[in-house]
Structure formats: C-alpha cells, structure tokens
C-alpha cells in the first residue's frame, strides 16, 4: 500500500518533532526521572508506530505480524517503564 | 531418490531422537550443564563439585560424546536430501555436510575436556577450572561451523522452486536468523558473568535451545522430504523410460 508523498513527509515531520520534544523533556526539564522515562519511552513507541504504519505499510502485513508488532510495542514500552518504577 | 535411499535418509532423520535423548541425559543432566557453572565460580568450588560428582560426570560426558555419533548419521541423511533439494550446483549441499559434521565434532570434543576434569578431580583445582573453561570456550567459539550448515539449509530451502517446497520458507529464515545470533558468542570471552557470558541468557539459553528445537523441526521436514523425493522419482520413471526409448 503506497502512501502519498504528503503522508510520508508529515510522518517525517512528526518523527523529528517527537524526537526533539523527547530531548527537551529529558535534558532541559526537571521532571522526576520516573515520569521522564515514561514520557520518552512512550514517545519512542509512538515514533515506532509511525514508522510501522506510514513507512513499513503495517496495514498490509499478515494478521499474525500485525498482532506481533502491536504486542511488541506494548511489551517493550511497558517493560522499560515498568522496571523503572520498581 | 530411490526407495532404498529414501528409507535410509528417513532413518537418518530419526537419528535426531537418540542424539537429543542421549546428549540431553549425558551432557545436560549427568554432566550438570543446564545451566553451566558460571565462569565466575571459584576454582575450589568447581573442583569440589567435580570431586563430589565424579562418577555421574564421567558417565555423563562419555555418553554425550558418544551421542554425537548420531549427529553424523543425521547430517549424512540431511546432506543426501539437500542434494536432491538444491537447485543448480551442489556446493551448498556440501557446505551443509561439512558444517553438520564439524558441529558434531565441536560438541564431541568439548565433552572430552569435561570428561578429563572428572577423570582425575583430586588434582589442582586450577587445572579443573582450566579444563572446564577450555570446554566452554571450545564449544561456544566454534559456532561458525553450525552457521555453515544452518545457513546452507536455509539458502537451499529458499531457492527451492517446487510449487510446494520441500522445506517451508519460514523454517529457512528462522534457521538463518538463529545462525546469525551465534555471532554474539564473539563477545562471550569478555564476560565471566552476566547475560553475555557462557551461562548467560544470550550466549547459553538463546543459542542452544531454539536451535535445538529448529533441528527437531528440520528433521520432521527432512523425513517428509525424503518420502516426497522418492515419490517424485517414482512418478518420473515413465517419462524417463519414454525418453530413453524414443532416442
């Protein structure tokens, strides 16, 4: 499934924006480390999802692979954030 | 594949069973290798374990070394099936043969080091530790030979153009991936503990058990392939007879 150039471009804008935002949150604000981790990792999951859907064409993946990647995103984010709070 | 060859190849596929059973009991259970003692264990402690359990360790490693004989049998059958599966030239099939045999050799010889340690465990603990280290460094760092046969099988399977391939593509890709994962063993010598040491998650559990499972699944397909190749051969006889008589 081919995305239009506009979609591809906006995906890139989103990825760059979220990257910069994460950087700012992590390095230039004083929020507590647990919250900070949650924010940057959630941002990572969102970026990964953008790549998955807009660039990799996740919608046309076989069903099991869509399920797998969906689960993968959740598990990875939850694991990293979860251990940070323990 | 003629009926006789097919039957022998199928027997070779079955060899995976005695291999895993004998090796599992000998190396895993009696040899106390699942999981192995960490490289960080002091020599004194290791030597004491070897002194206390010398009898079971001896029979364990002797049995394990013998069990690898079945890998050779298995590999020969695999090689014959690969020859018939491989499209074009046969170099990859020979790679599978060499890789499989050397993997068996790798496993066999590593057992001799541990067996030697168990043979005379009352000697200097440092020597026991040296033999133990030697066994693991040998076993793990020879991974390249396993890569040869696993990637060989993978590529042959991927290049099979039969409408219904003899080996599923997913099996090929998983085999290739598992073989690549072995490369992590390259950093194993840096660690005496942790997830990248010889007893760790990434250099023991991941490179041993998934590939073992893959080997068993491969054996099932190898068995089925041998059957199908015989059927292909039998159904092709009329055509070849006709060809010979119309020349």
């Amino acid at each position: 499934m081919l995305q239009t150039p506009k979609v591809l471009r906006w995906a890139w804008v989103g990825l760059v924006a979220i990257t910069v935002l994460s950087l700012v949150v992590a390095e230039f604000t004083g929020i507590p480390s647990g919250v900070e981790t949650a924010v940057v990792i959630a941002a990572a999951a969102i970026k990964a999802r953008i790549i998955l859907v807009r660039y990799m064409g996740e919608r046309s993946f076989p069903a099991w692979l869509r399920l797998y990647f969906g689960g993968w995103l959740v598990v990875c984010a939850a694991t990293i954030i979860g251990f940070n709070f323990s | 594949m003629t009926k006789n060859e097919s039957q022998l190849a199928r027997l070779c596929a079955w060899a995976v069973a005695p291999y895993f059973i004998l090796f599992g009991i000998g190396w895993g259970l009696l040899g106390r290798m699942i999981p192995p003692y960490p490289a960080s264990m002091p020599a004194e402690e290791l030597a004491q374990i070897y002194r206390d359990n010398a009898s079971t360790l001896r029979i364990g490693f002797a049995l394990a070394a013998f069990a690898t004989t079945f890998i050779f049998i298995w590999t020969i059958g695999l090689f014959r099936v690969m020859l018939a599966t491989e499209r074009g030239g046969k170099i990859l099939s020979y790679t599978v043969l060499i890789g499989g045999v050397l993997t068996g050799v790798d496993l066999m010889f590593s057992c001799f080091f541990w067996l030697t340690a168990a043979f005379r465990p009352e000697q200097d603990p440092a020597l026991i530790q040296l033999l133990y280290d030697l066994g693991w460094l040998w076993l793990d760092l020879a991974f390249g030979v396993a890569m040869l046969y696993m990637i060989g099988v993978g590529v042959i399977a991927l290049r099979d153009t039969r409408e219904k391939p003899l080996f599923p593509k997913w099996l090929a890709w998983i085999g290739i991936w598992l073989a690549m994962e072995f490369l992590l063993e390259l950093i194993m010598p840096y660690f005496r503990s942790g997830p990248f040491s010889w007893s760790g998650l990434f250099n023991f559990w991941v490179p041993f058990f998934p590939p073992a499972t893959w080997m068993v699944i491969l054996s099932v397909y190898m068995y089925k392939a041998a059957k199908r190749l015989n059927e292909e051969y039998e159904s092709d006889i009329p055509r070849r007879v006709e060809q010979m008589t119309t020349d």
Partner: protein
Amino acid sequence: MGRAPQLANRTTSANHVDPQEISLPGDSGFWMFIAADASLFALLFFQFSRDRSSQSVVFDEGQQHLTVLLGTVNTLVLVTSSWLMASAVRSLHRNAVRTGMRLIAGTAALGLVFAAVKIAEYVLALRSGHTLSTSPFFMYYFVITGIHLVHLMIGVVVLVVVGWRLRVGIRRPSDRTLLECGTVYWHLVDLLWMFIFPMLYLAR
C-alpha cells in the same frame, strides 16, 4: 541423436516454478526473520531494564558519559533515511527509476553517516576509559548499539544490492519481493533505534 543424460535428481519441470516469477505472498518466511530479530531486541531491552532497576546509580552515572547530542543527530539521520527509503519505494513502483535510485543512494549514505557518528561516539567513550567491562551500563551500551550497528551495516549492503538489482526498475515479481524485504529490514533498523536511543541515552 540421443538426448543428453538427465541428472538423477531432475524431475519433470511441471511442478517447478520459474524462480524469477516467485513473488512471496504477504506471509512469506522473511517476516519470521523480522519478528525473530525484534524479539531479540525486546529481550535485550528487558535484560537491560532489569539490571538497571537493581543498579540504578551505576547506570545513571554511566549514562552521564554519553553524548546525547550525537545520539539525537543519529536519530534524526535514521528517521530521515526511512523517509527517503519509503519515497524510493513509491518512486520505483511508479517507474520513476532515476529518482528511486537517487533516494536509495541517499538512504545508504545516511546509513553510513549514522555509522560514522556511532564510531566517533565509541572512540570518545573508549578514550575516556569506558569499555565493555568497565561497568554494566557500558556493557549494555556497547553490546546493544553494537548489535544495532551490525544490523545497520548489513542494511546498507542490502540497500546497495537492492539498488543494483533494480537499476532498470521493477521488472519481475521477484524484484518487488526484494524491494519489499530490503525496505522492511531498513525500517526495522530505524524502528529499533527509536527505542534504543531513549532507553540508553535519555531514560533514567
């Protein structure tokens, strides 16, 4: 005049498919490779997080020595490379071969930029006395980014192969498959970095 003797294992061509005509359906085994790879990294993330939770001081201290700026630059480089690659696929499917080739070359070039920056970071770390064995944090840093870097370098090679094979455009189903697999692999490399970067550099 007799025909050439048949090889013993040749069968009728009726049940063989022309290799050039193979088009892997959506559930081809390559997806298993991708899933296996992603699983390995998930395991690495798990192991890292677990060790960090029990040694947070050591890990946070180690993190101080990383150059976040360089990591950020690399993130932007990789994200841009994914954009270029996705655009390349679009171009090739619409038979704009020259544009497609340029975009693939751009992707590969950015990949090399990433590698250069990463190696520079390694050199900086090593010069400051941090190695695989100096602290658990640096063990994970070098190993995780190292495995990722190897994936990336393989990806660059794959891109070159894809570019070479498709230099006259998409002609056969097997071309389409090669492009799809190569692209998905490259995006996976990017996707993994999306987690690796914040986990190692930012999260504490």
